C-alpha cells in the first residue's frame, strides 16, 4: 500500500503548498465582489468561476483551505494534549483521581456541544473580527473534543501501570515521576498520535457542519464550511460541476489523512 501512502502524502503536500502560497497564486482577493459577474463559469480570469456574489471561487477555496487546514490541526493538537494529560493522569494514578477525571470526561461527552457552541457564539462580543471568530470556534471545538480520547488514553495508561516492565522498574527502585515520564508516556505516544490524526478530519467536518448552520466562520472569510454551505439547497445542483471542487478537495484531504493513519497503524 506504499503507492496509496505516496498519493496521500502528495495530495496533502500539494494542498498545504497551495495554502501557503495562496497570497501569490490567488488571482483576486477572496472578499472582492465582481458584481458584474455573479455565478460566472470558469474562465481565464476566474479559474473556478465566481460565486453568487461575484467572488472568485478559486481564491476563496485557497483561503478557505488555509483556514481549515491551519486551525483543524491546531484544535486536534489541543485535544490530544488535553486527552494525554487528563487520560494519562487518570489511568496512571487510578483510584478516586481516575473516577473524578473520568466523571468529568463523561460530563463533557454528555454536553449538547451544538447548543454549547450556539451559546458561546451568542455570548461573544459582537465586534469580533472574522479571524478571531474562527479561532474561537476552533478553540471551543478543541476544548470540547478531549473527552473521548482521554477515555482511550486512560485505559492505555492503566494497562501500562500494571504491565511487567512497570513492575520491574519499580522493583529496581525507579521513582513514580521517572516511571511516568520515562517509561509510560513514550508508550502512550502512538495512541495520542492516532487520536491527533483522527481529530483533524473530525474538526474539519465539524466546522463544515457549523458553517452549514451559519455558525462557523463569518463573512467575508471563507472556510470549507462556508464553501460547502453553498452546496446546500436545490439550486446548487444546477449544471455547474465546478461548484463541487471544495467538496472533492475535502474528501481528498480527509481520505489522505485516513490513509496515513491506517498506514501508521499497520505493522511494518
Amino acid at each position, binding site marked *: 500500500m506504499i503507492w496509496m501512502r505516496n498519493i496521500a502524502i502528495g495530495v496533502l503536500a500539494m494542498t498545504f503548498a497551495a495554502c501557503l502560497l495562496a497570497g501569490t497564486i490567488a488571482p483576486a482577493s477572496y472578499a*472582492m*465582489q465582481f458584481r458584474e459577474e455573479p455565478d460566472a463559469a470558469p474562465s481565464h480570469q476566474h479559474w473556478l468561476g465566481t460565486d453568487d456574489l461575484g467572488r472568485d471561487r478559486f481564491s476563496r477555496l485557497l483561503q478557505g483551505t488555509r483556514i481549515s487546514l491551519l486551525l483543524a490541526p491546531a484544535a486536534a493538537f489541543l485535544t490530544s494534549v488535553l486527552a494525554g494529560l487528563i487520560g494519562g493522569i487518570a489511568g496512571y494514578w487510578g483510584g478516586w483521581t481516575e473516577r473524578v477525571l473520568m466523571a468529568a470526561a463523561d460530563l463533557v461527552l454528555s454536553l449538547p456541544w451544538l447548543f454549547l457552541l450556539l451559546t458561546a457564539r451568542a455570548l461573544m462580543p459582537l465586534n469580533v473580527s472574522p479571524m478571531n471568530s474562527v479561532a474561537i470556534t476552533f478553540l471551543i471545538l478543541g476544548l470540547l473534543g478531549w473527552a473521548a480520547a482521554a477515555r482511550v488514553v486512560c485505559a492505555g495508561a492503566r494497562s501500562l501501570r500494571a504491565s511487567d516492565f512497570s513492575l520491574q522498574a519499580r522493583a529496581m527502585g525507579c521513582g513514580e515521576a521517572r516511571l511516568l515520564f520515562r517509561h509510560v508516556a513514550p508508550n502512550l505516544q502512538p495512541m495520542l498520535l492516532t487520536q491527533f490524526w483522527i481529530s483533524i478530519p473530525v474538526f474539519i467536518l465539524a466546522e463544515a457542519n457549523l458553517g452549514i*448552520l451559519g*455558525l462557523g466562520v463569518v463573512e467575508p472569510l471563507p472556510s470549507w464550511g462556508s464553501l460547502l454551505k453553498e452546496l446546500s*439547497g*436545490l*439550486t446548487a445542483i444546477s449544471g455547474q460541476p465546478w461548484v463541487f471542487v471544495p467538496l472533492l478537495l475535502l474528501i481528498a484531504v480527509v481520505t489522505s489523512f485516513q490513509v496515513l493513519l491506517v498506514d501508521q497503524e499497520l505493522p511494518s
Partner: protein
Amino acid sequence: MNSRSRVLLSLIFFFVTTLASAQGGGQLRFCLRSDPKTFDPVLVDDDPSERVRYITGGFLMRLNRFTQQLEPELATSWKVSKDGRTISFRLREGLRFSDGTPFSADDVAFTMQRLMDLSLHSPTGDAFRSGDGKVQTQVLAPNKISVTFPAPIASLDQHFDQVAIMSAKSPKKEMAVLGPFYVSDYKAGSYLQLNRNPNYWKHDENGRQLPYLDSVRLDIQGNRDTEMLRFLRGEIDLVDNVDAEYYSRVQTEQAGSGHDSGVTLDPEQVWFNQTPKSPIPAYKRAWFRSTNFRVAIWQALNRDDIARIVYRGRAQSAVGMLSPADKFWFNTRLTTHSYDRQGALKLLAQDGFRLQNGQLFDRDGHLVEFSLVTGAGNKTRERIATMMQQDLSQIGIKLNVVPLDFPSLIERITRTYDYEACLLGLTNMSLGPDAQMNVWLSSADNHQWNPRQKQPETAWEAEIDRLMRTQASSLDPKKRKEAFDRVQQIAWEQAPFIYLVNRHALSAISPKLHNAQPAVLQPYVYWNIDRISKSAEVASK
C-alpha cells in the same frame, strides 16, 4: 321496459355521470410549511392557521387581493357611522354553514362576542380594541346587525377582512364554516384535507355553484427544497411564495410556470440601536443618533446591486416605509435615496467624520466600525449583509456581520439591547397605516431603534406620534392620507429604518390550473380559490 332498454338507460346514466365527474374541478394540492396551530378562526396567530382560515372561512367582506378594494361577501352592504364607532351590516339571506346550520345575524353577534372576549386573547380581535368598554352588538333583524365599539376605529370596515364568521348553533362549532371548503381530514405532520362545501353560497356568472375544485389537499412540508422538487415533479400544483433563486430554476425547467406579480409590501430593512439604556459605547450611540450618519449609510448602499444579485432582479430598491404595492397609501412624491458614495462622504464630513488611508474616523478619532446582527441560516440576509460590507468599506467603514440564532437575536433586539445594527425583513399583511401603529409610535414595543419611550426623544418622533394619532382618529380618507404621507416623508428624511429592497411576489403555478390570478398581497395565488379549477372546461364556462 325490456332488458335491452334498461341496459341502454344504464349506459346513458353511466356516461352522463362519468362526464359530470370529469367536469369536476379536481383536487388542488399544495404545501403548508408547518401544522396549523388552530382551526378556531378567532385564535389564529400563525401563518398556516391563517391560510386555512382564508380557504375555509366565510367573511362579511373581503379585500380583493388583485384590485385592493373591499368587496361584499356575506354582507350585501354595510355602513360606518359618522363617529366611526358603529358599523351596520345587511346580510345575505338563506345561507347555510357547511353542516347545514342556517346563517343569521346571531352568528355575527356570536363571532364578535368571541372575538372581543378578553379571556380568549384573540389576535384578530386586537385590531378592534379601540378603547375601554364593551363592544355592543345589536341584532336588528335576522339579516341586519350593528356593532358599536367604545371608541372610533379607523378603517373599521377593512378589519372585517380577517373576521371569519362562526356558527352560534352548530354542534360542530368552528368546524362548521361558510367558506368554499371545510376541513374533512387532518393528520398532524402529514396532511390536511379540505372538501368542497356543498352549501357554499357563491355562484359563477353562469349560475354554477362555486367552488370549481372538489377538494384541496395541503401537505405539511417544512423543507422548501422538497416543496420545489415536488412542484417540478408535478406532485403539487402551486408554490405560493417562491424565493428568487428557486424562481430562476422554475423558469428554466418549466417555462411559463413561474409568475412574478411585481413588488410586494415587504421590505428588508436595517436599523441602528439608538436606545439610551443599551450597553454600546456612547460615541457609537452618537453616530447612530445622527441623521446625517444614517442617511449617509443609506446613500452608500448600492441597493440596485442587492436587488440584481441577491434577488436576481426580482426586487427593487425600496423607497421608504411603504412599498408602491400599496396603491392608495404610498406617498408618490417620494423617490428612492440614490446610490451616491461621494454624497455619503459629504454628509459624514458635516458631522466631523474624515476618511484617512481608506478608513473612516469620527471627530474624536474613533475608527468607524460596527456590527450588524441578522438571523443565522437566512441565505438572503447573509448575502445582503456581505454586500453591505463591501459597499461600506468603500467609504472606510468596517462592518462585522454577526449571524445569530433567532432566539439570541430576538433577546438582543427586544430585551438586552446589546447590539449595534440589525438587518431583518418585515412582512406586511395589511395595507395602510393601521398595522404600522405599533412600529411608529415612540411608546410602542416595536419602535425598534428606540422602543418604549416615555416621551418622544426627538422632535421628529413627536411629530410622527401626532400624525399617526391624527390619521388613526380621523375618518376622512383624504385627511388620513395627508397625515400618513407626511409620516412617510419624515421617515424618509430621518432614516430610522434604512429600507433596502422590496422583493417581488413570486409564485409557481402548474399550467394545469385555470383562473389563477397571482397578486402582490398574500396569499399570492389562491386568494380566489373558489374560482380556481383544474379543468379547462369548467373554468371556461
